[in-house]
């Protein structure tokens, strides 16, 4: 058991355990650690440190510094800290313990700095590496044996002489524990606190994720969500599960507000969401979308027409608007619209236009 800890790196002093924490809650959790097993969960104790108001302040877990490799490195019990949003914060060692590199050499101050930088990088090259890719293996036609001779990961991704330590700790720091921490924190926040975070640049993803979990579809949350997406269009995608689970009226209203101003990527996301939704939009919904049809790509037109068919969204008004696209410079769009319109109930004039198109392009239809 760990008794005393020597704080190595303190990123945020206000999270200093000794300074303000008053309560510890232990959570028994199961996580997959890529260095231990790709399929079996490992049971761990995640400790929540609460502030004086009983809210999560930070979290830690005591883990082994090396969980895989050539068994040449010494294994120490170390403590990993996350902030309340599941972001890696710092590492602490028991007093008198120093991390060791190959050959029994201790980590230098520079090594600790580098380790900390590596652990803070959620996109580290270590992310996609399997333990078997760390070093070369040697084998003939029989059973493989590990040599540890060649390290195959790029140098910047690990402290030289301590690749297994870096690999093990990175995968602890970025394990499923992060998501569990976010949910514990999210549950401890009130709706208004989450709404506040939705307006803060740094925590919008967290707020959207937790408001979706909490199924809060209040008017205030809807408005804040739409405003946030307007400012930062990248938030549309993570917000889609929120809208999909919202009551129909809120869903349709959100789509009507989002689609006309969206860029191509977001418009396709919305179209696909509508295609797959269990909500049931009325034909009027489509008429009122106010689409900039002449700016749409073939893929968008194709998808939109598919939605109209599958969701029974065809109206005379919509048909009239689409006729303009028969004369699109993009023949694929014109042809696609032709086939759609050909199947609709048309006026005589419209039928004439369709026949004319057919006559002109019959070899390409």
């Amino acid at each position, binding site marked *: 058991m760990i008794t005393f800890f020597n704080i190595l790196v303190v990123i945020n002093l206000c999270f200093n355990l000794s300074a303000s924490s008053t309560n510890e809650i232990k959570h028994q959790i199961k996580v997959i650690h890529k260095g231990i097993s790709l399929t079996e969960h490992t049971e761990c104790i995640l400790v929540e440190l609460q502030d004086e108001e009983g809210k999560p302040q930070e979290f830690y877990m005591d883990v082994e510094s090396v969980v895989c490799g050539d068994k040449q490195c010494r294994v120490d019990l170390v403590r990993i800290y996350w902030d309340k949003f599941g972001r890696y914060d710092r590492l602490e060692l028991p007093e008198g313990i120093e991390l060791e590199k190959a050959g029994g050499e201790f980590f230098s101050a520079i090594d600790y700095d580098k380790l900390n930088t590596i652990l803070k990088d959620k996109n580290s090259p270590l992310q996609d590496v399997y333990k078997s890719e*760390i070093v070369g293996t040697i084998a003939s036609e029989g059973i493989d044996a590990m040599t540890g001779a060649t390290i195959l990961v790029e140098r910047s991704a690990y402290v030289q002489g301590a690749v297994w330590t870096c690999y093990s700790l990175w995968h602890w720091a970025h394990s499923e524990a992060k998501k569990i921490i976010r949910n514990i924190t999210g549950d401890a926040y009130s709706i208004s606190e989450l709404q506040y975070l939705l307006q803060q640049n740094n925590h919008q993803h967290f707020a959207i994720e937790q408001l979706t979990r909490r199924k809060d579809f209040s008017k205030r949350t809807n408005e804040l969500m739409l405003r946030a997406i307007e400012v930062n269009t990248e938030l549309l995608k993570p917000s889609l599960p929120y809208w999909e689970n919202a009551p129909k009226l809120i869903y349709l209203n959100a789509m009507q507000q989002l689609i006309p101003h969206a860029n191509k990527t977001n418009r396709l996301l919305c179209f696909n969401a509508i295609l797959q939704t269990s909500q049931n939009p009325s034909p009027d919904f489509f008429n009122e979308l106010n689409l900039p049809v002449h700016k749409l790509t073939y893929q968008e037109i194709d998808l939109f027409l598919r939605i109209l068919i599958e969701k029974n969204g065809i109206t005379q008004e919509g048909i009239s608007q689409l006729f303009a696209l028969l004369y699109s410079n993009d023949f694929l769009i014109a042809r696609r619209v032709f086939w759609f319109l050909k199947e609709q109930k048309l006026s005589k004039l419209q039928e004439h236009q369709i026949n004319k198109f057919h006559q002109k392009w019959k070899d390409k239809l």
Partner: protein
Amino acid sequence: MKRRKFFKNTVKGALGASIIPLTSFSDISAQSSNNINNTEAEKPYRNTDPKQWHQMGTGKKPRPDRRKTLTYDVAVIGGGAAGMCAAISAARNGAKVVLVQDRPVLGGNSSSEIRVHLNGVNHLKNGLPERETGIIEEILLHNRFHNPQDAYPVWDHILYDFITREKNLDVKLNTSAIRAIMSDDGKIKAAYCWQSTTETEFTIEADLFIDCSGDGLLGATAGALYRTGREASSEFNEKYAPEKEDGWQMGSTVLLGSKDMGRPMPFEAPHFTIKYDAEKSHKGRQLKPFELGFWWVELGSDNDIIGEFEDNKHKLLGYAYGVWDYMKNSGDFPETENYALDWVSSLPGKRESRRFIGDYILCEPDMLGNKQFSDAVAFGGWSLDEHNPGGIENLSEPPSYFHQYFEEPYQIPFRSLYSKNVPNLLFAGRNISQTHIALSSSRIMATCALEGQAVGTAAALCAKKNVLPRELGQKNITELQEQLLRDDAFIPYRPANDKNNLVKKAKLIFASSTSSGDPKLLNDGWSRDYNGKDHHWQSEGLPAQVQIEWDERQSISKIEIKCDTNVKRNIMLRRDSLENDVYTTQIPKELLKSLDAEARVNGKWIKVGTIEKNRTRLIKFYFEKIETSAIRINLKETYGNKNCRLFEARCYS
């Protein structure tokens, strides 16, 4: 222990375990053999009386006449990985094919008789595989679906199932191709074969012969040039070759297996055991893990490795039991106390003997320098893994010299896969045209399988065009490569550019969602991500759709797509059922399971095919020809991944 000689180095000895008929040969060359007085003309009833057999049930007195002449486009000799892939590819490409295998089972070194892992490019220098696709992958996937228990005897029948379901393909097991019957123009006219189980002589006539037998008896009796032993380093500028040429050929191995019986299991060694001297052994002769035997229990030869096979086999059994005796009775391995042998191979797995001479001899600098061949048709990438001279009789040296790992796969040219002097003879497997050092890498079975698919496809094209392999290589190499790529073979740095592929003419390719890659890459000719470059499209979630649009109407009857099976993970059958990050016993979770395809005809989408339980990387929808301006592939489910990844989409008229 004194060496026992089972066979002298007679013809019979040279044939190893094969049994040859003592009756006549019907070919001209046979008449000059020792059996000249036993020819058909002189002994029409072949030493039997036509009324000798009294069949009690019917009362008939039949005279069995078990001589058959069969005619094919392509005859493949040898039913290992190379031979199977050669036979299947030739048959699928329209040739009438026979596969002749001298054992009761298929699979060669990978069969239950030998149990060597069907390795390929298992690990490059970066530690990752670059797995083979094409027919060999289909076979390995077939095994994953039907043999989750990893049983070797079942594997034999996985192969049997796979190959006997193929149209245009006859399989003759327990049949040895004993000699070539030659025509006046120097070509092989027929293979004279003996099926031991039915006492039947087959004369197999064919336009093309593919020798995938490893030892290459058919080719040798046809007079095809070949080499054995090691080249001098100066001949091909090979840094790992000896200074002076010699006769050394890498050895054969006897594998064994044991199981934990849950109680102490004493072991008493049989009389032919040869004591293992662990103290004198190089530390590379690893004794752990011990459960599945030791690949380094190996004996080669400086001379006639084929003729010495049975003698070497006797010694190998002695050495194998010797190592096991040491594990059980030296006292140094208490963990073996409850273990007992439950299988010891009686058929050593061969690594090397004849290497035929083709128009090109593949060598070490080609591989290490990654030489780009305009006639590349296959690839390899196992390390230069040259087993030590002397094998287990040279204990002080490491069992193998892993001279060098490859940064990336090397190419194998078509000119190394047909004979220089027998014009209708092709070959694939360890007997191809290469140096000893090149063989140290390319002998691996999945690499041999790629060569097999290449020569099988080539033979079918030769039959179709009525040309010989050399001419095909000179005039039609593009067609051969394109067909291989279409059939899901991979040739490094040779992207497909099939002018018949109608997707090349498409105006637009798009997908319903994209989490990585780009739908346009389905048309870039590459069927895998390679060397750090993406060549895929991946959906974001499922279901997903890919749509291909043409400006003009197209006549289409075939849609072919290539999905992901994760070529960075090995899926071959292993005796240890290893499950880790680069080996799996599972069906690849990336593999597409269910999908359908639609074509737009007169503005309406028509379903042209549905697959609910797909089991292959190359997925085909074949249907009545239709006129269409767009197709749509609806991807529904994988075997575990939430996203689906495709590499290629093709359409043909």
